[in-house]
């Protein structure tokens, strides 16, 4: 059981690295979809081990909403740029990888230092979960493409769902439902703006927008 959970959590972490370095816009969205499905699988595996039904609900929702629905929404809004490679980045490939590794290290050290009461998952998974969160936020800050920035935020949120699984076996179904709703509305608002960005500057490179100063 522990082995399966740790393996799945490692896959979630690896997909966070994939988002950080993937250059094609569509590849980052697919990476997010894969990450969400693995995360959902992890929750379902935990349900199989513990019998907590809200974990089953969480797993199914993660697969359906984050693995399928959200990537479909983003693809529909961002189709023109989906196959494009991002040409300009804030941070280059080797630097990004190096900083990502550094963030992962920080996450593991932090997880080791804080006095957690272990639940269904062990402490290394907490380190991975915090690392996924940090990597997602870093992806958003390091990249200029609006679609990739959105995907980074969504990946960070996946990391937080994983943190929630480690420390509380889920915060209760109602809160998780409202979190899913929040994410869904966020994706709707942001993909609407992505369409507008594309109409305005004929790409989704947010640095093209830059005019406001001072």
């Amino acid at each position, binding site marked *: 059981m522990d082995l399966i959970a740790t393996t799945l959590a490692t896959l979630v972490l690896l997909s966070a690295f994939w988002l950080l370095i993937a250059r094609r816009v569509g590849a980052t969205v697919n990476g997010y979809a894969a990450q969400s499905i693995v995360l959902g699988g992890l929750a379902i595996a935990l349900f199989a081990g513990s019998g907590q039904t809200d974990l089953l609900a969480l797993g199914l929702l993660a697969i359906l909403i984050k693995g399928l629905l959200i990537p479909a929404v983003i693809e529909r809004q961002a189709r023109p740029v989906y196959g494009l490679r991002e040409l300009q980045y804030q941070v280059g490939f080797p630097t990004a990888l190096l900083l990502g590794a550094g963030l992962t290290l920080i996450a593991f050290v932090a997880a080791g230092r804080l006095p957690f*009461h272990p*639940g269904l998952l062990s402490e290394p998974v907490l380190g991975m979960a915090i690392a996924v*969160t940090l990597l997602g936020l870093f992806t958003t800050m390091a990249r200029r493409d609006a679609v990739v920035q959105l995907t980074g*935020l969504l990946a960070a949120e996946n990391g937080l769902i994983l943190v929630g699984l480690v420390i509380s076996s889920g915060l209760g179904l109602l809160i998780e439902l409202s979190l899913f709703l929040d994410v869904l509305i966020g994706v709707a608002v942001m993909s609407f703006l992505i369409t507008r960005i594309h109409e305005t500057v004929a790409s989704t490179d947010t640095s093209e927008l830059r*005019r406001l100063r001072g």
Partner: protein
Amino acid sequence: MTGAALMLCVVLLPAAGAAASLVVPERAMAVTALLEVAVLGVALALLALAVQGPAIDAFDHWLHLDGLSGVVLLVVAIVSVLAAVYSAAYMRHELHEGIVRGSEVRRYFAVLHLFVFTMVAVTVAGNLGLLWTAISATTLASAPLVHFYGSREPLEAAWKYLVLTVAGSLIALLGFLILYQAGVGPLGPTYNFSVAVVAGAAAHLSPLLAGAAFLLVLVGFGTKAGLAPMHAWLPDAHSQAPSPVCAMLSGAELNCALLGIFRVYALAAPAAGGAMLRTGLVVFGVASMLVGIVFLISQRDFKRLLAYSSIEQMGLISLGVGLGTPVALLGALLLVVAHGLTKSLLFFATGNLLLRFRTTAIGEVHGVIRTMPWTAILLIGGALAIAGAPPFGVFIADLSIVSGAFAGHLWALGALTGVLMVTAFVPLVLPFHSMTFSPGARTGGEVGALALAPAFALLGAVLVLGVWVPGPLEQLLHSAMTVLPR
């Protein structure tokens, strides 16, 4: 049970306003403002109930209202009513000029009421997960309003606003999850993650986890509250949105983010020890004041000027709470009210300028005193009020925070705060003086009585606050003080 029913009522009324906006004719949108009037009425009844006794807690701790959230609810309700009324005047003018279409106005009002709904939800949230969700939802509801005019600059501002504040919210969520874990020791692995329950066990939380949770929430929601150095989005969003929305963003929404920070501060302080947490608030507070003032000087855009002033004032509020002496706390809480009202007043007044002159450049607005004498009174009164001149509310609040620092024997900090406030005075007042009194062409005239009334109501209110804090408000502020650590 009345408290529970009133809380449910106050949060559902704005949602009804959103629904009403979809069916009411465009020219009669002012009617939907009546629902916000009802919100204010219910909020006042609720506050009258809240100051009399202990916090109102209902629905298995899902909803909760105490003095602290009461102060924010008061500001949110007042600013929302007036912003809805002002929006009616503002949008009528934009429709008349052919700048916006009827369908856009309808959508604007629907989203405006939804935005109020999310902010009111923040103030009555008792479950901490719900509190986080509501604070994040304020971003999602207001971003379309920032993007309202649809051109390139509002789009850039809305995107930056979304990306940075959502990232901040996620950092805050990590803080909330760690706060949950901090309570597992005393409360068991599954417990009701609510203000009332966690406050009951606050002294027994894990100190390290509680401290870490607070710092994450401070950085995360500090981004949303515009605290430096995470403020980069604020001047853009708060200057590109339509003026009534700017009033709500600066006057009401920032306080909702602060409420999230102060809530976790109050819960974490008993276990983690006040000193470290307090330092965090003071450091971010002073940094925000410095950044705000640096950008106030030589600012050429009057809406950005007001936005940087908001950064400075948010810094001052968090500094006041961080100082923790009774006088400073009272000053900080009074500043939440005084700043919210004064900043809204200024965004309403400059909104009139914008409708007439079609620019936000300070250098392109001349002779307001001759063409728009009533707006000129608002501009000068508002500028003096926000800069901290007597006899306005902000002055009393500023004075309390500085004397609170001295009362706590923090001489250097008190002196620095005093110097910063005085430094901000000229760069805040001078631009409004030059726009009002400089010689210029005689064009236009006032926008209309409905566009002036909300700002005059606020000018009256901040004048009253400067000379006399009404009894019930004083009770509310004192009740809020008891929630915050000293």
